[in-house]
């Protein structure tokens, strides 16, 4: 297991460093960025920038300062939100996004694996076809369509849940569901395919010949290999959730990281945008690491 960890870190850490470095380069290269001497800045911002980025120092030193800062959580001052550092903004928005994403992931896994188990154990039947059609439909509908559609039905027509904003758990229901649905569809399809393949394996035949009841065969012998494709998908799933969260936060007016990102992008607030990208990259790398470890736990052959 530790071998997997070391291998993953060996690729992940340099990747992250490269990302941070690239962000630095991009900031400098961007036309019209505050570092471009031509853009007019008010004295306060200019002073803050000089202090934060050491614009008078040679380039490699600036780069090192930036990388060091990032690793400490210091992304520099925001361009648009004048009184805030990017770090402070991220600290504000991160908990919201993490809650949203975390709940959505749990929901997606529960729906996806649950649905797949029913479908896979009744392969070919009506339940199977119905669940799989639903799953396919869900993957095809982008979250920025489901989001507004859900609001239309549940908030405006049925008046059951709030339209937007973040006050209390009730306001999280629609966003979490909207975010989770497309991912749950993908998970359901992967898990069902994994289950059908697992049930056809030779070791399942051995278990059947041994006279074990079907429930036991499913839980003890078939489930772990069936989940392998789902675990492989966790990295891309995390990326998908982060991306989807951006839209969901915008649609539902939630003060999360995604919304800051969009605002930053529209207002060309480079430090903010870059800071969020770096953070997201780190999160996904972390998720891939967790996924690899989980894969190793499910399949001992990988451990070596």
């Amino acid at each position, binding site marked *: 297991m530790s071998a997997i960890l070391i291998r993953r870190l060996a690729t992940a850490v340099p990747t992250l460093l490269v990302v941070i470095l690239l962000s630095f380069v991009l900031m400098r290269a961007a036309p019209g960025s505050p570092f471009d001497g031509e853009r007019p800045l008010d004295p306060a911002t200019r002073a803050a920038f000089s202090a934060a980025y050491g614009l008078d120092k040679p380039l490699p030193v600036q780069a090192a300062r930036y990388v060091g800062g990032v690793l400490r959580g210091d992304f520099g001052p925001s361009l648009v939100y004048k009184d805030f550092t990017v770090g402070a903004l991220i600290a504000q928005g991160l908990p919201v996004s993490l809650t949203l994403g975390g709940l959505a992931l749990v929901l997606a896994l529960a729906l996806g694996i649950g649905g797949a188990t029913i479908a896979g154990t009744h392969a070919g039947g009506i339940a199977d076809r119905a669940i799989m059609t639903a799953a396919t439909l869900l993957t095809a509908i982008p979250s920025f369509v489901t989001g507004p559609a859900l609001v239309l039905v549940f908030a405006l027509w049925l008046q059951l849940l709030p339209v937007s904003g973040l006050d209390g758990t009730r306001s999280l229901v629609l966003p979490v569901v909207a975010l989770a649905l497309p991912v749950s569809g993908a998970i359901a399809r992967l898990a069902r395919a994994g289950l059908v393949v697992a049930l056809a*394996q*030779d*070791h399942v*035949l*051995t*278990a*059947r*010949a*041994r*006279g*074990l*009841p079907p429930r036991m065969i499913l839980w*003890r*012998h078939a489930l*772990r*290999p069936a989940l392998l494709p789902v675990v492989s998908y966790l990295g891309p799933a995390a990326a998908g959730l982060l991306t989807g969260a951006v839209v969901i936060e915008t649609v539902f007016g939630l003060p999360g990281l995604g919304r800051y990102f969009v605002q930053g992008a529209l207002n060309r607030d480079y430090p903010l945008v870059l800071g969020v990208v770096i953070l997201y990259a780190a999160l996904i790398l972390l998720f891939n690491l967790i996924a690899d470890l989980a894969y190793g736990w*499910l*399949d*001992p*052959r990988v451990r*070596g």
Partner: protein
Amino acid sequence: MTLYTVERLGVATGGVALVHDVAFAVERGRCTALVGASGSGKSLSCLAPFGLSAGVASGSARFEGRELIGRDEVDLRPIRARAGFVFQHPLTALTPHLQIGAQLTEAATALGGARPDRRALAAMLDRVGISSPEAKLDAYPHRLSGGERQRVLIAAATAHGPRLLVADEPTSALDASLRHAIMDVLARLRDDGLGLLLVSHDLALVARYADQLVVIENGRVAEAGGVAVIANPASAAARALVAASPKLDDPAPLLPPVGGSLLEARDIRVAFRAPGWRGGRIAAVDGASLEVRQGEALAIVGGSGSGKSTLARAIGRIGPCDAGSVTWRGVALPPRHAMRREHRAAMQAVFQDPIASLDPQWSVIESVAEPLRYLMPELGAGERRTRALMALEAVELDPAFADRRPAQLSGGQAQRVAIARALVARPELLILDEATSALDVLVAGRILALLETLQRERGVAILLITHDIAVARRLCHRIAVMEAGRIVEEGPSAALVATPRSAAAEALVTASR
């Protein structure tokens, strides 16, 4: 005492009857074997009554006094659990994420028996001949070799003390040298009182271990009786089976005469990078030398991992070769990337997997004509087609096959196409890399007969790679035995088989007896 009686057995899938009117019985302490080619219905006859294969069974199958046929899965399960089953693919039959000890315990308690302690579990493994059984209990299946895994499966199948053990081709996926070892384990269990129902296509194997033989062809019983069936086969099916697998005590083959030296390989070495990031190299071929003469057939025989394929490919310049020289008629052959037309034209190869040997997008005639395009560029398209058709005829394939795709061919047909392609440019040496190993026993027999004919008619030299020394003896003048990358013994076929000197050769001969 009769444990299991089958009468008037029929098995049908989708309305099509695959098995008709099959009958056999298994007694305590005796082994009954169902023998036949693949697709003959022997596995179905064995597994369908227990609900372990596709198809609906009809007729009667009484196990320990209880009728199996007509019961649904829920009723069948407890009855089935009272027998033990061993299947064909040991590498995948154990659950990869559970430890050996856990799987054995599960098998032992399946009928509600008491949980065995560690000593009892280790004893089970010891009984089937596993070394260091205590340590292996905590291991995961992928750490054990194929032979060890099959032994574990036999232990698991007998853990709850069944009186009947059903073994469906238990040795087919294993190396030839392991077959007897596994069969010995089963034979010992039988001598202890277990009733054994064996399914196999390997007549030689069955002859040594079975008390009762049932020959199955096209879903029907062709012949049944004691082991004498092999010595004096009455039915055509039995005769075909006996003829298809070459045996060491067959009459000595009449081989074509041999000429001057054609190919000489000296001190060939091939090493591969060891897997994992630690690096290092593993020697697959560690200094091997051989010589092939005009019209001569030389066999390289060895177990899997001995390096025989690697050696042949290095010599034929279709695989890596790190050191050593190969000369053709006294002239050194260039390395792989520098091989020119005239060198390539001298040697051609046929590989183990017939369907993978053909480009799935190309038609048969295109594949067969391909060597002509590069090795005889002076020919026009029409001339190429004619020669390709002639080659198809030589391998006994109807010209109607010319425009078919590989997906429409059977294994045997595809291998014939591969042989036609190898011979179309009239090479002087044919490299056969396990050319019959992946084929069904009857089909392999026919391909061997074809190769004998071609050898006789064309006088082509052959370098035969195989793990079956009986096949080597049938086609080849000389045999070289390879082990761990080295040639450990070499000599004329008849002499080597009669009195093998090295341990490796001896093991191979015993495995084929």
